[in-house]
């Protein structure tokens, strides 16, 4: 699990000591030159010649700039983003001017024109790097993860508190247990949604959750657990299963008047972990219980952020059962 916590603000200059940044700058500048050559030359061969000749002129200041920026990186970081950008442009202009003087009579155009071109190129590359940082910013991924982190339905909280109130006099011990379960559940909900947890912990969490729902719904909720071959040491994103079980009960059991069977099955096959959650399917009536897909989309996106392409989440209705299948890579405790 790559940590996503180092957190450069998107308003910072790119890290000029990062190989990726250096490579991107080199590629970007050369691409710009190639495009420029493409624009001026009608013929492919002539274009390549032009490009090579020009490369000979802009490559030295470019490389010199990158080397100097590498050296200056810690010092540059002390300035704000925009001042940093101006300093970078100043470095580029200085090297460009120096190259221009060295080239002497081989210089392609007047100095002012060359300097304007160099500054424009630098600005374009800086803008590109800024966009790149924004798009891939760990801070952004983190914010997305936090926003995506499962949130329990207020409906559940208030109904559970109400159920506990009803227990306090009749069955104080069960009331205590239920409050402890609620506390564990909320501790998990308020914890760090960016971490991986052991499957065993997630299972014990959803068992606590199910116990509270059982208290509220009584006979209407019939849980079956198939966990014998669950790989308890597998690591998975925290709170992956609880929202799915909550969905199953909210959409599958609560709207029904009869007994609602909910199945939770977790098993390991080779290096994959399979989770299935099944509940009775009620065709959504007009104007009731929306939001099912938001929870599922949320979980799908979290899986994507954690496992990239290696995780699957599928849903389907078969007969009168609604089913969610998750398939994630098995990763033991690191």
């Amino acid at each position, binding site marked *: 699990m790559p940590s996503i916590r180092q957190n450069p603000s998107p308003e910072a200059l790119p890290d000029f000591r990062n190989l990726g940044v250096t490579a991107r700058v080199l590629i970007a500048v050369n691409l710009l030159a190639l495009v420029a050559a493409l624009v001026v030359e009608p013929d492919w061969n002539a274009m390549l010649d032009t490009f090579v000749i020009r490369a000979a002129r802009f490559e030295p200041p470019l490389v010199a700039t990158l080397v100097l920026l590498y050296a200056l990186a810690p010092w540059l970081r002390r300035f704000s983003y925009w001042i940093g950008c101006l300093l970078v442009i100043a470095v580029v202009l200085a090297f460009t001017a120096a190259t221009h003087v060295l080239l002497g009579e081989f210089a392609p155009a007047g100095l002012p024109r060359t300097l304007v071109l160099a500054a424009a190129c630098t600005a374009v590359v800086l803008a590109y790097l800024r966009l790149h940082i924004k798009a891939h910013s760990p801070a952004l991924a983190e914010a997305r993860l936090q926003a995506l982190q499962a949130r329990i339905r207020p409906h559940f909280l208030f*109904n559970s*508190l109400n*159920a506990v109130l009803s*227990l306090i006099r009749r069955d104080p011990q069960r009331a205590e247990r239920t409050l402890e379960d609620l506390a564990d559940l909320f501790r998990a909900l308020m914890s760090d949604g960016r971490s991986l947890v052991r499957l065993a912990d997630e299972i014990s969490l959803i068992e606590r959750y199910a116990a509270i729902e059982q208290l*509220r*719904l009584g006979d209407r909720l019939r849980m079956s657990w198939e966990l014998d071959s669950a790989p308890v040491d597998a690591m998975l994103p925290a709170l992956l299963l609880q929202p799915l079980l909550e969905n199953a009960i909210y959409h599958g059991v609560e709207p029904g*008047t009869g007994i609602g069977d909910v199945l939770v099955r977790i098993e390991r096959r080779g290096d994959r972990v399979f989770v299935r959650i099944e509940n009775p399917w009620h065709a959504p009536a007009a*104007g009731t219980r929306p939001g099912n897909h938001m929870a599922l989309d949320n979980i799908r996106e979290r899986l994507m952020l954690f496992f990239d392409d290696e995780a699957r989440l599928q849903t389907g209705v078969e007969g009168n059962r609604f089913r969610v299948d998750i398939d994630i890579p098995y990763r033991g405790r690191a």
Partner: protein
Amino acid sequence: MSALRVYIADDEAPARARLKELLADIGGDVATTVVGESASGLDVVERLPASAAQVLLLDIQMPGMGGIELARHLCGLESAPAIIFITAHDRHAVEAFELNALDYLMKPVRAERLVAALRKARAAPAVEAGRAARLERAASGAREFFSIVDRNRIVLVPVGEVLFLKAELKYVTLRTGAGEYLIEEPLVSIEREFADRFVRVHRNCLVARAAIRGFERIAGGGEEEPHWSVVLEGVDEHLPVSRRMWPAVKSVLPEGRE
């Protein structure tokens, strides 16, 4: 003062138990007797009328039929109870209650609030003018049932079973595969509420879109002009389509079913 007759409707047993505890606690302020309790809306419809309840404590989220629809059906009862809605968390419902001056309590219910709501219910006439309309406005969607109130009994007819509705004088005749019922609602409001389910074929007639099997050209003769009539699944009766409605009605039937 005699004890207030209270009926409790909530699908969660612990919630019902909690309300009973509270009612017992506040007995000194408002004396009550619990005359019945139900875990579903349909059960309330069946058992509440005979209980002579004066107040109904009604959870709005119940399986089968929600609280607001249930309240709308109860409106027709001669001795309809005052209704206090209870909700755990439903912003939309709460907004609708506020907007339409309907009484509600939030779960977990507080004793003081319950006392105030019961006192208010005791003071107000249960069947006040305009309540049906306010409930209708508070509802978030179409009903699942039509209700026919027969003195102190409510018969529910699932909307999905209705084949057509025909207005005749003061009443609307509602026809299902099983029989006919008379209801006292204007056809216009039914048309508005169930626009996606029924289509108007004539000034006095709504037809279930799903039941339409085809159209017949009636030759006419004598006084009668030739006209189209709609053929419904399991109905022998001719239901004429008015010339004005024909273009709209024609398009209801998908291709290939004619």
